[in-house]
Each structure stands twice: as structure tokens, then as C-alpha cells.
């Protein structure tokens, strides 16, 4: 069963003018894929991530994630679906400023109802794994951009979702921090079998992706699978 399946998905934004963001897109991603959607601004990369992440709805088409047809799932159940199955990494980190690193990591497990001791133990183990244990009690504003984005990735990974969606995760990082971040995501992908789907302009990300989905004007113009 594919991890992600899109069948003839279209999305048009109607504001002052109508903009067709995705047009009849069909796509499947398997478990443990490490894929990047690339293309110029306005090509539909972020829209694709939003639709797959169930935070936006298509005008037409079918989307199945981890076996659930989210396009036929009521909005009231989608929050629970995101909580259990999807991790997000945002371009501008979006950590909660009033929570420490360990509390940020434990936020989603807390929503899932995991006991405090267990979620904090898991967060500490994960931090230690990536060599960031010393940062556990820091607040986001005490971290560098690279550190914040790595914490954001760990926050997405900790609940062990089926899928992590990362929107331009390296856009605000220098090349050294971007490399560190990609190393970490690659390792999590290999060792834990987490599926990653990025949207990116960054050649560094593209070079590491095992699958490149090129978008232009809301359509997939190429879908290249590469050997690791």
C-alpha cells in the first residue's frame, strides 16, 4: 500500500484573481521514500505539501495517506489524523517560544496523551542521539537558526509519524547548518523508515533526495527516482 497516493488532484485559489495551484496531479510515494518536490515559485510545491498534510483541501481528486482517504474524511477528524500520522517541518522553524526545547519536542506526544515522564524520556533520548542533549532546557530564542530547525525536525519525528512534510526546511539556514540538518533527516529516514517529502529550491536538498518530483504551473513535469 503506498504511503501517499494522489489521484487527479486539482486546487485553485480564488482571491482577487483565480490561480490554479495544482492541476490534475497524480502521484504515489512509498514508505521510507526521501522525496523532494522542486520547481520555481508558484509551481505548486507548498500546495502539494499542504494537501498531503491535510491542512488544506483540494477542489477535486482523491488523496490517500497511510491508507486513509483524507479527501473523504470530515475536517473534525483530520486534526486527529495529523496528530497520529503526519509530522511538519516549517520553513521558519515555528517552535513555540514559551516552551523549552524538551517541551517543544514533547508537545505532540502530550496532545496524543502520552504521560509526561514517557514523552520527556523519549525527547531526551532523541536529543542525545543527535548530540543536542545540552540544549534541552533552552528556549527557542536562545538557539541559532540551525539548532531551531533541527529541533523542529526532531519535534516532527518524535511521535513516530508515517510521514514528515518539510516546507523549504533549509531556506533560512547557512550551508553548514543545512548539511547538518539533511544528515540528521537522512539518518532518521534510513534508521526509522520515516517517509520524507520536501518542497525545496535548495540544490543541497535536491542532491540528497532519492526522488525528485519537478513541478511547473501546477503540473508534474518529471518524476525521477534516483539510486542512493
Amino acid at each position, binding site marked *: 500500500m503506498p504511503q501517499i497516493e494522489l489521484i487527479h488532484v486539482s486546487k485553485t485559489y480564488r482571491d482577487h484573481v483565480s490561480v490554479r495551484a495544482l492541476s490534475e496531479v497524480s502521484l504515489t510515494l512509498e514508505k521510507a521514500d526521501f522525496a523532494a518536490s522542486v520547481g520555481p515559485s508558484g509551481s505548486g510545491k507548498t500546495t502539494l505539501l499542504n494537501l498531503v498534510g491535510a491542512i488544506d483541501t483540494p477542489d477535486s481528486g482523491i488523496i490517500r495517506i497511510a491508507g486513509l482517504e483524507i479527501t473523504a474524511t470530515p475536517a473534525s477528524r483530520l*486534526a486527529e489524523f495529523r496528530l497520529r500520522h503526519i509530522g511538519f517541518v516549517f520553513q521558519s522553524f515555528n517552535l*513555540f517560544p514559551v516552551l523549552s526545547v524538551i517541551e517543544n519536542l514533547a508537545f*505532540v506526544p*502530550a496532545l496524543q496523551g502520552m504521560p*509526561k515522564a514517557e514523552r520527556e524520556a523519549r525527547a531526551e533520548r532523541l536529543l542525545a542521539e543527535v548530540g543536542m542533549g545540552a540544549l534541552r532546557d533552552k528556549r527557542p530564542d536562545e538557539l541559532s537558526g540551525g539548532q531551531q530547525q533541527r529541533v523542529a525536525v526532531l519535534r516532527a519525528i518524535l511521535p513516530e509519524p508515517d510521514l514528515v512534510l518539510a516546507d523549504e526546511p533549509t531556506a533560512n539556514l547557512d550551508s553548514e547548518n543545512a548539511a547538518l540538518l539533511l544528515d540528521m533527516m537522512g539518518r532518521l529516514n534510513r534508521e526509522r523508515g520515516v517517509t520524507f517529502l520536501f518542497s525545496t529550491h535548495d540544490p543541497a536538498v535536491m542532491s540528497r533526495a532519492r526522488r525528485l518530483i519537478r513541478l511547473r504551473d501546477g503540473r508534474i513535469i518529471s518524476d525521477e527516482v534516483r539510486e542512493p
Partner: protein
Amino acid sequence: MLFWQMAWRNVWRYRRRSLLTVLTISLGLAFNILMRGIGDGFHEQMVDNSVRAGIGHIEIHRAGYQRDPALLKTLPDLPLLERVAPATPHLIGCSFRVLGDGLASTAENSSGVRIIGIVPETERTVTTINRAVIAGQFLDEQMSRPVLIGERLAQSLGAGLHDKIVLVVQAADGSMGAQLFRVAGIFRSGSPDLDRGVVYLLRKDAQSLFSLGDGVTEAALLLDSSESVAAAQRYLASRLAGAPVEILPWYVVEPFLRQFIQLDDAFFYIIVLILFFVISVGILNTVMMSVFERVREFGVMMALGAKPRQVVRLVIQESGALALLGVALGATLGSAATILIAYTGLDLSHYAAGASALGITTTVIRPELTSQNVIVSCLSVMLVVLLVALYPAIKAARLRPVEAIRHI
């Protein structure tokens, strides 16, 4: 627990704004507690003045006397009443009186008066009239036909101490009664009605004047507080069941006083409503700004899987934390101010003339602090804050994550 932590820290994230909001809540609450305390103290004092001016907390008459006072309607079964009334719970004093109307005359003038026949020893336990004597002395059973008159009546009659006064009445048997008395004392109660229209004399003299024999018109009971009226009334009703008497609390005897207190309460509630409205606007502004500034954060929360009700909970908890701080500070400030003013007294002597017309003879108001007042005020403020926060909370919960995350 995590949400409480987030809420508490979010409150301190915008320290100055939060402190201003807490201050608004606390000052509003403190004002509410103080004003309620002043109102309660003012009302209690009015009631106290009235009951001590003569009516007592409870009056007992023959049934029908209140509706149609008549001299012949004397209390039935006086021995039973004289046994039961002194044993009333919360009783401070009890006075059996003779009441009637008549004409007081001197060589110079005459005036219609209310005649009250008292036993000085028991009357002292119910009223404060003995302490209002400004010339001469209070009545004494040893004196021969003494009367105690108000200062204004003395002026209008042109009567001074030891002067003669003739009281002319229609007696119970229909005859005209006229007897000579001497002014033993002049009082100034502060109540215009008492000072110009009442003559006190010994009960035995009044019984003679009105040809009542041993008849007594009313029993006036003074209790430890107006809160005790219901319990005392229940006791008297049970012990006097079957006797043709009416047991009347002060607010039936003086309905005007109760209506004034109710009207005053209504004005107070209008002020409280305006106050709560002002507090609400302040809270709404704070919470709306707080929500607006964190649209992206709420979007991220929801994208990560937070449900709308959890977002509502977070915003409500933040407002609840502000309200708790405001209520704690406000209750402390309000209680302290009430206690302080109760200790020093609120001097209204500048308005004494107007106050005396309302039955206020003591011009220093002492606010009352009651736990009920503080608890009700605190809960009301908490409720108002939480209700007001509901609107921005629901607005936050209705954000679409995809749009909220893009919010700058």
C-alpha cells in the same frame, strides 16, 4: 498540565499588557467590593437607626393593627406575650408600649403628636432615645407625670424644661382625656419625625390618659442583627400560634425603608454592570491582541494536531490566569480598603441634613465586609472574564491552519 504551563508563560510573554489587564480587573473588583461594603454598611445603618428609633426588628400587635391602628386593639393575652417575647432567640431587648395620638398644648401653642407610653427600664434596651437627651433627663418611674419631647416640638410649643404641657386625647372609651404633664427632658434624635412629633411618657400614665387599664398596644423587639429576623419570627410564630396577633418584621412596619434599600441596590447593580462592561472591553482588547499576534502559532498548533477545543482551552486558560491574578489582587485590595474605611469610618457629615431625611442619624458610615460579598464579586468577575475570552478563543479555534501558518 502542558497547556497550563503554556498559558501561564504566555501571560508573562507580554508582561506590561498583562499587568495592565490584571490591574484593570483588580481595581474593578476592589471598587466593586468596597462599594458593596459601603452599600451594605449604609443599609445596615439605616435599618439600625430605624429599629433603634423605635420600631425594633420585630413588632407584635393585635391582628389587624398594622392595617387599621386603633386604640382599642391592645395586645391579647399579655401574660403569654410577656413570657414568650423575652425568650426570643437573638433578642437584645423587648419593650411593651402604649401608642396613641393626641394634641400637645402649652400656653403658647399646640401641636398634633404621637404619644408613646414606655417603661423606661425596658425601653432603654430597645431604643437609643435615652441617649439622645440634650436637656433634662430621660423618664423615670419615680417622677410624677414626666414627658420627654423632641427639640423641634419644644421649640414649636415654646416649652422648656419643667414647663407644663397638656396632652389632650380621645380615650379608648370615647371620652376626651386631658392631663397635665411636665417636661422632664428634651431630646435630639436627628430624625425630623421624632424630634417634632413624638411625646414619650410613662406607660402607666399613657394607660391612664387613654383609659386603657392594663392594655398595651405593641411589643417591640430588638435583635442582635437584621439577619436574625427570620429566626426570631419563626420562633414567635410557633410559640404564639393561635393567638390573634401579627408578628411584623421591620421591613413590613417601614416598607419605605426596604423599598429605598432595594432601589439603592438596583442603582448599585447598574453601576456594577457598567463597571463589568468596562472590564470586559479591557479584557477583550487584551485577549484579541494576544490571539491576533499569535495567529501563526495557533496555525502551527493545529497543523501539528491540536483540536479546536484545545485551542479554545489554551486561550481560556490564559484569560483565566489573568483573571485569577486580578481577582486575588482585587479581593485583597477591596477587602483591605473596606476594613480600613470600616475602621476609620466614612464621614458624611457634610451631607447630614440630606441623610437625616433618609433616616440616617449617624453620619459616619462603616462599610461591612462579608464573605458572601467577596465571593460573589470574585466569581462574577471570573465569569465575566471567561465569557469575554470565549469570543477570541473561538475565533482562534476557527482559524484555518493553512492560512494561519502563512500569517505574518
